[in-house]
């Protein structure tokens, strides 16, 4: 297992989160190392979304701690998560169809040529194109042109662009929420290649998925969540999909939690 003995990129220790009377997270532990893909599986309401939103700064944990490279950190906002090198690609991708690939990659964080007002409105186009070219090549994805509007592109290409946007910022950890849902066979293959290239670039990846094939094809570790806890950690090379399904539904030997 890559980097099992090194300091984890991200470590979540006993994180709990409660919304009113609902205990969404009841003390979750999770580790992600560099160059590792961790698949996070679980039924609806198992707490996957709450967990990633806590890691990406949308929610604040009630208790427990989050460590990045061994240091406890506070993640009060998505901006703070970005600053720590944690980028999240949500299922809706949050792309603008009427903008070009480059414009989408740098949206809201454009490189500019001057620092003073109002000259900071002048974009540093060449630098952005260079960085975008680099990232797109690293991801091994093919796009018609970095200057075409993305409304014309396929679901797989759009997913790749959203991942590329997470990478532009030199992130350490990319969280992907259902990246292959609603994609065709070929596009799914492309997105899988993109995820493998992310890992090859030394990034940690948390992959939230319902797709067992994705989990087995991509993950170095499978973590199963149920009722607000990470109840099982499995090696996809050892377990079978049936065992994972068993863990998700609670139908296996693992005892039901109250």
């Amino acid at each position: 297992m890559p980097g099992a003995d090194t300091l984890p990129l991200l470590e979540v220790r006993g994180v709990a989160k409660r919304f009113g009377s609902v205990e969404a997270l009841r003390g979750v532990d999770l580790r992600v190392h560099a160059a590792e893909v961790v698949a996070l599986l679980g039924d609806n309401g198992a707490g996957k979304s709450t967990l990633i939103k806590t890691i990406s700064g949308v929610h604040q944990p009630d208790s427990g701690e989050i460590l990045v490279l061994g240091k406890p950190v506070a993640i009060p906002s998505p901006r703070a998560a970005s600053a720590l090198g944690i980028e999240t690609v949500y299922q809706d991708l949050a792309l603008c169809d009427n903008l070009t690939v480059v414009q989408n990659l740098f949206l809201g964080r454009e490189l500019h040529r001057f620092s003073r007002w109002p000259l900071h409105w002048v974009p540093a186009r060449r630098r952005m194109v260079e960085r975008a070219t680099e990232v797109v090549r690293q991801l091994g994805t093919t796009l018609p042109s970095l200057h075409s509007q993305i409304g014309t592109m396929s679901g797989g290409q759009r997913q790749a662009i959203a991942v590329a946007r997470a990478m532009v910022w030199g992130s350490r950890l990319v969280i992907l929420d259902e990246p292959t849902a609603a994609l065709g066979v070929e596009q799914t293959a492309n997105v899988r290649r993109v995820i493998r290239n992310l890992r090859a670039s030394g990034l940690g990846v948390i992959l939230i998925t319902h797709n067992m094939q994705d989990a087995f094809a991509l993950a170095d570790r499978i973590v199963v969540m149920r009722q607000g806890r990470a109840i099982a950690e499995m090696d996809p090379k050892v377990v079978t999909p049936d065992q994972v399904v068993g863990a998700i539904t609670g139908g296996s030997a693992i005892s039901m939690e109250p």
Partner: protein
Amino acid sequence: MMSHSRSPATPSILARLGASRIAHGDLGFLPVVFGLVVIALVFYNLTPVFLTPRNASNLVLQLGPLALLTMGMVLVLLIGEIDLSAGSVAGCAAVVLVVLLTRYGWPAVGAIPAALLFGCLAGLIQGSWVVFVRAPSFIVTLTGLLVFQGLQFLLLGEEVGALLIYDPFVKGIASTYMPHWLAWCFVGLTAIIALAAALTAPARNARRLLRLLLFPLVAAAIVAVLNLYFGVPYLLLLVIAVALALTLLTEHSLFGVHLLAVGGNAEAARRAGINVSNVRIRVFALCSTLAALAGIVAASRQYSVDSATGGGNLVLDSIAAAVIGGTSLFGGRGRIVGGLLGAVVIGSVSNGLDLLGQPAHIKTIITGLILLAAVSVDMLARRRRISSGAAGA
């Protein structure tokens, strides 16, 4: 703008006009330019006066307020909103200007900024209302339309009829012409800039070079024609300067990208860290400021203001002009140049029908039909765009 041209682009005239894109349903400005040619030919056949330097000069002056208003409207439509109050704000700002000049004896140097500031404030208030109360801009600016129309009457006071302008500078805005040599200097400047752009462009291709050549040629043609009459009105310089500034803003600045992002997918823009509220308020302020400028120009042309200044169909014409120029009513798509071309379409039709002595109701009917034709062409082209796999916004 780069295109998704799968067919090889040949460096011909057709390629310059975007022939390779047309197959994919991306018509660009082709329908508008074609429409303008048709309009010119039809009116020339009906009355040869239409294509005279004198009428061209008149047309430029008539177009001023509509062109300025349309450019503001394009900005608001780009972020997916609408500003129905623009005409009323124009009229009201014109009345503010003239009341300050004539009743209070302010100098132009104080009254013009005051009128522009009035427009800016009108936009700030309406934009803030849209953003903070989350009321639809249609309703907020409809309120603006009514309120500012009322305010215009209120400011004019009991006095019936027009309030005259005596200030020579304000009167001169829409009725002075630059010397012939100065106009040619501007053509020369255009040529130098186009040449510099052609030489410094990183990727040199025939289409780009031909497009750059278009600017000095069009400028030279306009100057040559207008110099046959009184010359180039300073008003044209004002309109072109505003158009250039807004084109830089929308197409070559980060603010322009944010503006398109807000129009294309506001939620994505917000999550990308763009201050969406800020962008929206700024755009409403900018649109209303341009409306105030349009009002000042309209007042200058009339040498007076009355309750009808900025009223009538002006605001609806500006929306129509923006749409004819390819601006989407759903946000995220449109260009300042397009709005300008759309304004020229509406302006020339109105001018031509005036020359033919047609009454106002015929003008509105024909303007409406042209709007319908423009939207239909766009919808058909869009359907083609979708079927060729290039949906776009």
